[in-house]
């Protein structure tokens, strides 16, 4: 396997291998919290922060604990627990030391615990055998890519607020169609880089 530059992975995670638009991970909050740009942006930031930290934590847990002990098959359950614990911890720290940030991100943090994009990144880094720097590039890139996708969707949804959407397609229906079209549009980036 060719060693990919972490920066290449970073760019790829934003555009060509976007968590939402090419892997369809993290869809529930993507659809539920994309009505307005500011909230979408808030959630996106929170996802990026949590992604960055949890994938680094999970990287070490996997490399230093699970692999040496031959417990790779436990990664699903361990990763979920570590993500949940980290989000709890982050919530406490923010609430105490950065109240302003807590008040803008606070309500999204519990949502993120169950966001599959977070677990997805931790699992991809294992499957794809990333080293530490690649993991960092991949996780932060994925977070930014997720933010880009949800903010773009929120922008589109604000634009179509007054559009005559057919009755049966209102709400999640039209949102899924928009997501599909966005995914098609993102295929246009596929010439830049490609990771797998």
């Amino acid at each position, binding site marked *: 396997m060719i060693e990919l530059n972490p920066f290449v992975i970073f760019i790829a995670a934003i555009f060509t291998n976007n968590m939402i638009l090419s892997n369809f991970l993290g869809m529930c909050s993507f659809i539920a919290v994309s009505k307005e740009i500011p*909230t979408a942006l808030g959630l996106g930031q929170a996802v990026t922060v949590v992604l960055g930290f949890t994938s680094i934590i999970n990287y070490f*847990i996997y490399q230093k*604990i699970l692999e040496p*002990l031959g*417990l790779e098959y*436990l990664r699903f*359950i*361990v990763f979920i*627990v*570590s993500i949940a*614990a980290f989000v*709890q*911890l982050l919530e*406490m*720290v923010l*609430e*105490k030391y950065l*109240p*302003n940030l807590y*008040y803008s991100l*606070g*309500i999204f943090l519990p949502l993120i615990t169950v966001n599959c994009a977070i677990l997805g990144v931790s699992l991809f880094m294992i499957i794809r055998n990333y080293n530490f720097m690649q993991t960092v590039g991949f996780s932060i890139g994925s977070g930014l890519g997720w933010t880009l996708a949800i903010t773009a969707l929120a922008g589109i949804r604000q634009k179509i607020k007054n559009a005559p959407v057919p009755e049966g397609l209102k709400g999640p229906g039209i949102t899924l169609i928009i997501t599909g079209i966005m995914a098609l549009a993102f295929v246009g980036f596929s010439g830049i880089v490609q990771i797998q």
Partner: protein
Amino acid sequence: MNTILMTTLSITAISALFALLLTIADRTIGNYGEVSLTINDDKQFTIEGGNSLLSSLIDEKIFIPSACGGKGTCGYCKVQVDEGGGPVLQTELTFLDEEDLKNNIRLSCQCKVKQDMKIHIPEELFNVKEFEANIESITDLTPIIKQVRIKLSKGEEISFKAGQYMQLKAPLYEGNNEEVYRAYSIASSPMEKDSIELVIGYVPEGIATTYVHQHLQVGDKVTINGPYGDFYYQDNDREMILVAVGTGVAPILSILKWMKSNDIKRKAKFYFGAKTEGDLFFLDYFKELEDTLYDFEFIPCISRVKEGDEWRGFSGRVNNAIEEFIEDGKNKEAYLCGNEPMINSVIKVLTEKGMPEELIYYDKF
């Protein structure tokens, strides 16, 4: 065998490690120490910081009305927070209008106590208590309305004003996985201090009404708290117009019982509305009151009179009855309890008759 052991051990160890970390964090980062809570400028409490204002107040035996149990979905637990509440949260904005924001009103279930706080609450909330009580009897008033009599524990007393309401806790039961509080007006007289009566109608899929109608048995223990509400009997000598539909009869009943036992000499007319005759209840009691009260007239109104029925009351809705029987609204006051459309239409008729709006007291549900 080894694999199973190893797996269990590792999972336990890792989870325990995280649990330990979180516990340490909770003790250090999540510890806000003791903070002081000043209520209405004169009462001061020292409480453990870090919890929501609502639960901190409950710990101090101060009950703020709340139907959802602190989940931020009912919007009832509004409290004026003057100092130390921090910025208003996203989760509160749905329930606060501009007026509320200007007056520092917050949802106490969302607002956390993290520093010294100053709040204002209505003085009468200090009178609110929580009671563990027993169901003494359950009577069917109509097929969908029950009268529930609740006896307080020995030695406990409740004092309330005629017209106020209590909150009844609906516990977990089969088909319901959340604890909620629902408000019901007290139908018994304030003179009875060791028990209360509630009139509870069945609402399809209602959490608390399903509990009362299908699960509650005589002898069961229930949790109630109260009294709450600014709808109650006002002491003066204006002529009274009482209007109720359905279970809205409860507070009116309490007011009438209060007038009877205190021998209050006021002119009063009671309009009791329902769809059919079968939906009316306590008719004999109200007829009897016409003889025993000082100057009381009972006017039952039904909106759907079938042809051939022998109906001696008024045919039509309560607002039509008021339109017909009340000449002008001078020197009168009104007590209305029932659903929103009824209240709105009666207020409209009464103001048209010249009754000032501040003399129309109502309880919408």
